[in-house]
């Protein structure tokens, strides 16, 4: 008995899941880094930092899975995209170095703390910006010839990619602010709530701008979004964004503590689905499909067995680690 079962599409889903898990998890902790200067030196900053200290390493591991998974399941896409966005990748990696070490280094020497707090912010900002610009660079298209990148080393630079870069920074900051509403109380929470309001508006404006600009990049995007009968499906995405946005602002006003974070996640999920509509089944738009880029079946099956068994286990103990450090970071002690 043979199953007709598209292994490559399954792997595309797994990688998409890893990337989304990364965006969600590292999104809020990069966001806290971006917002760090708005918190007062002392307890407020310490609370913000400590709300993510036990989990940041796990969050960042999803980035390694996204990259490593792409390498393993779609080696051609990994090779093309990383070469095409070379300076962005290097900037992101160096940004992550600075912010990653800041978690430990800031406690090691009182006089050096302002320095590592600055490294935390700048590193987070650079990493978020580089990721956003990379997204724009992929959407606008990458020049490919004979299965290799054929452009220059600054092809990624464009007004559109700058727009996606700034948008992702605002979006991550929103995730960070709404995470802090959940995890802190008192003055820190109050400040986070006000930030989340402004950032919520900013995120919606950014989503609208990117959505409006994308169909003009290429006719293919226009067709995907606006041709009948597909429009009946695709139109649900902006509709759901609108509903989520209304509930988000309502929950902020009502003083809810968890709902703003969950709705910010919903906004990200909808944005991510929108991205899927624009790209599928291409991994490098209009040049390389997931099937062109796919590793041979033996490689995909070998990893699928592992992923099917191990990913649920990872989710279970990651969930446990979050559960251990549940509750407010200020009042009930975290560490």
């Amino acid at each position, binding site marked *: 008995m043979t199953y007709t079962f598209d292994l490559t599409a399954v792997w595309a889903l797994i990688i998409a899941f890893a990337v989304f898990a990364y965006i969600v998890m590292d999104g809020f902790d990069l966001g806290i880094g971006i917002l760090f200067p708005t918190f007062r030196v002392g307890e407020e900053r310490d609370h913000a930092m400590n709300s993510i200290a036990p989990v940041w390493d796990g969050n960042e*591991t999803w980035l390694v899975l996204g990259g490593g998974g792409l390498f393993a399941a779609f080696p051609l896409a990994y090779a093309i995209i990383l070469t095409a966005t070379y300076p962005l990748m290097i900037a992101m990696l160096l940004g992550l170095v600075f912010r990653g070490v800041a978690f430990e280094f800031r406690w090691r020497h009182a006089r050096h703390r302002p320095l590592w707090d600055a490294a935390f912010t700048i590193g987070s900002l650079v990493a978020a910006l580089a990721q956003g610009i990379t997204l724009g660079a992929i959407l606008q298209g990458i020049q490919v010839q004979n299965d290799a990148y054929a452009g220059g080393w600054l092809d990624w630079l464009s007004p559109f990619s700058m727009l996606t870069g700034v948008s992702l920074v605002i979006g991550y900051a929103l995730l960070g602010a709404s995470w802090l509403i959940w995890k802190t109380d008192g003055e820190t929470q109050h400040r986070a709530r006000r930030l989340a309001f402004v950032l919520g508006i900013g995120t919606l404006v950014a989503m609208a701008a990117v959505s409006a600009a994308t169909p003009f990049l290429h006719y293919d995007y226009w067709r995907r979004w606006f041709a009948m009968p597909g429009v009946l499906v695709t139109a649900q995405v902006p509709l759901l964004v609108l509903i989520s946005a209304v509930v988000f602002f309502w929950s902020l006003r009502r003083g809810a503590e968890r709902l703003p974070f969950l709705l910010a996640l919903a906004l990200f999920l909808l944005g991510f689905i929108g991205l899927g509509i624009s790209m599928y089944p291409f991994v490098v738009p209009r040049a390389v499909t997931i099937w062109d880029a796919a590793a041979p079946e033996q490689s995909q099956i070998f990893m699928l067995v592992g992923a099917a068994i191990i990913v649920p286990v990872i989710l279970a103990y990651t969930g446990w680690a979050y559960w251990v450090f549940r509750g407010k970071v200020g009042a009930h002690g975290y560490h």
Partner: protein
Amino acid sequence: MFDQLDPVILARAQFAFTVSFHFIFPAFSIGLASFLMVLEALWLSTNKSLYLDLFRYWIKIFAVTFGMGVVSGIVLSYQFGTNWSVFSTKAGPVIGPLMAYEVLTAFFLEAGFLGVMLFGMQKVGKGLHFFATCMVALGTLISAFWIVSANSWMQTPVGFVINAKGQFVPAGSWLPIIFNPSFPYRLVHTVIAAYLTTALVVGAVGAWHLLRDRAHPHARKMFSMAMWMLALVTPIQILAGDQHGLNTLEHQPAKVLAMEGDYDPSPDGAPLVLFGLPSNRDAVVRYKIEVPKIGSLILKHDPDAPLPGLTDFPRDKWPAVPIVFWSFRIMVGLGFAMLGLGIWSLVARFRKRLYDWPWLHRLAVVMGPAGFVAVIAGWVTTEAGRQPYTVYGQLLTSQSHSPLAAPAVATSLAAFAVVYFSVFGAGTFYLLRLMARRPEQDESEPPHVPQRAAGITPAPGIYEGPIVGGADL
């Protein structure tokens, strides 16, 4: 100004720089994680607060080291694609899954339990905390398993076929790929090296504090534990290294000949070249000091066994002999210095002078960084010795790199150099500061000021035992 530079050389320099810097941290954290596991186990089984103090002392050092290992490691998982895109496309179907398994089985395990290990003692209680420590230690070893497997496959590639796109794809089972011919030897050699590196650091810190106060109980305990490790494990490592060398001779003879400095074949048994200045251009080792027949004795376990020379191989397939020759001597020399320190510690222990023999302690302090140097020298030997290939005998390094212009790679290399030296330089400074401070009775937990500033008291009943009452609780 960068246009004259060769982008391949720059890409190699960048990979060599970032991977060498990175490996310093896991070389220490693999051993330290296991050491912490042993300390916590000893604390739980004996209830002696000394072990908990040592655990808390070393876990702060572990946290800083681990953080640097994580961030420098992420760089590597992306560098295959950024700088070695042709290699990635071609070898991805084999190497990629091995690295994906490393992420799935090791990185998540370490990261998931690290938070609990560092900050969760009062949250989860002793038993679960010990479990978390064990998972982190296990994660470091699983990580070593997969990454050494991937590296070994590049050294001794088997179990593959080449498809129509020119990609390496598995021929059938994955087992021959994972357990490729050089993998078991390299894994054992690498993990023992990490344990020895850690023992040397722990021993040096203990010795440093013994030189100031030879009665200090914590310093005594850590020095003694480290010296046992060194004395017992260094001989095993030398044996493992010998076996690894025989395996390399079988599969990568040119590498061994470069390590030995044997340009000319030795039909009646090869000498052991102790020192000399190899020159690839003239195919000769100048000013060499050699012992006849010993080379064959070591490599073939027979003094008269013939050995080939590099001149038996095409010239463009030679590695850079001076690098391989010297890095190998640095590694072996340090290995025997470690053996010497281990033997001296046994003599001192036998004469009951382990804690009051200042020259022994001084040597232990000087040898503190020796593990790092030996480990890097060893990797330089095996990686430079693999040249001119990325996948040995199959894919040339000169045909593996990304289509990037030299200025892009030169700029990123300069950025990595500046950032790594400043960031990891600062990290090393913090580590040395932590080590310079003596472990104390009721050693505090990892520093998280707000917890104490906010006056947190742990839930009663979760955390008991004779140690409760420290200032940190």
